[in-house]
């Protein structure tokens, strides 16, 4: 018997939905095997990692707080990838959004009314968007590969932030720590009681708006055509250059908004590290969510769980919190593998033994 992948005539609607769940199941099995290899009861390990965080109010709140930037960034990336535009540098756009959004509170620490929050958010969005415009311009002008340029700009942004908080923007009263002044009052996002902040609402609104854009508008159609069949997009009269710019401005802006939202809530100031790699994890979120804005919402929650589960596993089971990255990697691997089933079906065929005759 041999395994054969047979092409389907139409996309399988079933596997388009089932594939991420199948991937999740396979990830759990692989995770169980990893726990078993470490001498931990697999069921207990998986319980601590994936279930326990959902049983307490504070950890559910943490889940939503962590999902907020993942969803905000992931939904923008989903639109990018749908258009076949490969923005890998959301982490850099997040950083630049946080920096530009922080100009107002750092420069005017005494500015205390709702207007500063609005200014911070707008400047955060614009900062991320403009930083995203750099790889877009390089792509449309010089045909430079946006995967490389956007990724390299992540490190530029990171080092720029490092220089700022150690140099010009360092808090003079901060005991020489590399941090800016701590934001307070109207310089912070209001919360819904506990730790969940206004950013969660932005994430929900972004998902709803982009779901509408993709399903109901000509722009959404343009995005799908450009990504699916660029030649047909040109025939339809859609400009590939404008689409690259649109995607980078949108996803960069949302990443910037996520960045300033993190700084104006969880972190409360600028410091060398403001994100545990949300910009990269959001790539997994986008794919796990089927590049669908509503799917991204659930995928963001799942990836947030992998962060919190990693912390829980470190505390309870005594294994490194790097396990979170391992789970994220395995998950992405299985998603991409399972997606094959959308276009192909697996068949077993009897092996054919060659029978040759001499003439």
């Amino acid at each position: 018997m041999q395994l054969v992948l047979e092409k389907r005539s139409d996309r399988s609607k079933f596997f388009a939905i089932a594939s991420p769940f199948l991937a999740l199941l396979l990830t759990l099995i692989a995770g169980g095997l990893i726990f078993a290899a470490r001498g931990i009861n697999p069921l207990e390990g998986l319980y601590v990692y994936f279930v326990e965080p959902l049983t307490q109010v504070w950890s559910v709140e943490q889940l939503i707080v962590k999902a907020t930037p993942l969803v905000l960034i992931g939904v923008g990336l989903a639109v990018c990838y749908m258009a076949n535009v490969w923005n890998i540098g959301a982490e850099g756009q997040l950083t630049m959004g946080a920096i530009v959004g922080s100009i107002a509170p750092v420069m005017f620490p005494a500015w205390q009314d709702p207007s500063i929050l609005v200014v911070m958010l707008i400047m955060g969005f614009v900062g991320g968007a403009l930083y995203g415009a750099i790889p877009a311009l390089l792509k449309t002008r010089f045909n430079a590969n946006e995967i490389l340029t956007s990724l390299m700009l992540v490190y530029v942004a990171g080092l720029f932030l490092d220089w700022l908080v150690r140099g010009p923007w360092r808090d003079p009263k901060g005991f020489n720590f590399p941090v800016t002044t701590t934001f307070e009052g109207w310089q912070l996002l209001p919360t819904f009681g506990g730790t969940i902040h206004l950013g969660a609402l932005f994430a929900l609104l972004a998902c709803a708006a982009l779901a509408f854009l993709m399903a109901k508008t000509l722009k959404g159609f343009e995005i799908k055509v450009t990504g699916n069949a660029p030649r047909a997009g040109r025939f339809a009269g859609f400009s590939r250059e404008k689409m690259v710019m649109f995607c980078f401005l949108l996803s960069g802006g949302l990443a910037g908004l996520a960045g300033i939202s993190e700084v104006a809530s969880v972190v409360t100031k600028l410091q060398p590290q403001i994100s545990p790699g949300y910009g990269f994890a959001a790539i997994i979120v986008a794919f796990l969510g089927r590049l669908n804005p509503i799917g991204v919402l659930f995928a963001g929650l799942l990836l947030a769980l992998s962060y919190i589960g990693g912390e829980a596993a470190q505390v309870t089971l005594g294994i490194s919190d790097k396990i979170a990255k391992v789970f994220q990697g395995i998950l992405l691997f299985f998603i991409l593998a399972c997606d094959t089933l959308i276009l192909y079906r697996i068949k077993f065929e009897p092996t054919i033994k060659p029978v040759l005759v001499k003439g």
Partner: protein
Amino acid sequence: MKAPEYLLEAIDIVKVFGTLRANDGVTLRVAPGEIHAFLGENGAGKSTLVKMIYGSLHPTSGTIKWMGKEVVIPNPNAARKLGIGMVFQHFSLFEALSVAENISLAMPGKFDLAALSKKVAQVSKEYGLPLNPSATVADLSVGERQRIEIVRCLLQEPKLLILDEPTAVLTPQEADQLFVTLKRLASEGCSVLYISHRLEEVKRLCHSATILRHGKVVASCDPAKETAASLAKLMVGGDVHTVRAAKVPKDGVVRFSLKDASLEAEGPFSVELKNINLDVRGGEVIAIAGVAGNGQSELFDAISGERPLPRGDAVSIDGASCGAIGVIARRRMGAAFVPEERLGHGAVPAFALSENVVLTRHSDDDSLAVKGLLDRGKASAIAERVIKTYDVRKGKPDPEARSLSGGNLQKFVVGRELDRNPKVLVVNQPTWGVDAGAAATIRQALIDLARSGSAVVVISQDLDEIFELADRIAVISRGQLSEAHPAHEMTAEKIGLLMAGAHEKLEASHAARS
């Protein structure tokens, strides 16, 4: 040992894909030294059977006999070892490599380019297939590229050569040359399995024919004793509707014109357009003949506005200049376009038909996208109308474009534009790879549109089609367009000369004067 009566016998072959019986008890027998035609509409199952003979597919049931003995052919390599060679419709050549290098990639054994080059030169000379082993493939015409594929097969000394629509890309002269080679091969005892739509050449060339319809053999006959019409009738299963054309109106005004349109080449493998002039009147069909790769797709891009021209007045629709504006604006002026590639250019393969309606109709028909919002209901209604009017056959109510057969998708892509009643319609290869029934439907629709007062331009490589459709014929060669001559003054020979570039100098000196 007595020589077996047949070289190849495929007996009662069944091949099932999912629920589709692509081959349903097909029997094909090829005698040694005969040129055997394998006829059928697109989707009749010809390629499926041929792929099983060549080992790239495997029958669900049935037996294949080679020289009287039952064989199983697991892969193309095994087929080649038996002595079966195949020339595909789409070549598999590396453009950046030389002829000999390309051939060496397919040859088993040690890599010896010098010896191989000598052998290539020898074989190509022997069989009248002139080839320079050290030429780079990118510089060669399609006809020459096909010769590489044929020589590649001949080097393995096949007993059976399979050709899949070999003349689709050739000039009449090149086709004649190919026939000489094939007859020579047959006289030496090599059998040829010849797949084609072109009934006239099958009649000229082939000793026997097997005709397939919907996966079943409907007839085996001697094509010389049949007429093209009777063969077509067997293939399609009914009388092919011949195209009826009313007289061209005498007083048509110029609706579409090109004035000294020039466009630089986009890359090393693209053709530069040089000073193209053309006037198309309302009521007439103009055909642009030419061998593939002489600037047809560049001309189409320039006409459609996918690549706007530097000068605005180089293209005009109903007297209004539109050379410098894009495809959306030109559609708004009443023009419609159908590109050569159906999948990926004229339609998005993964999109439903109703979504593919939006692709070209979003801009001209504002009701499909009011203030940026899509009206999917309206798009579905248009899709249904096109499907009904042009008899697009499909499995599901609103299937993905890629699940349709070539002919049905072409009917849809052409119908989508005809449905708008365009003032100017430009079609590149309207019936390429389309079965006879669908082709007749499309051609009739094009003529009807012209006679209703629109200007129609057809870019085609199919001379039969051109003579059937055209009121005037122009020929494109190396990016230059000849004058358009009335169709009744043109012959295949005259067109062949123009294809070879007879007008080029004339045009160049004309351009210098003006």
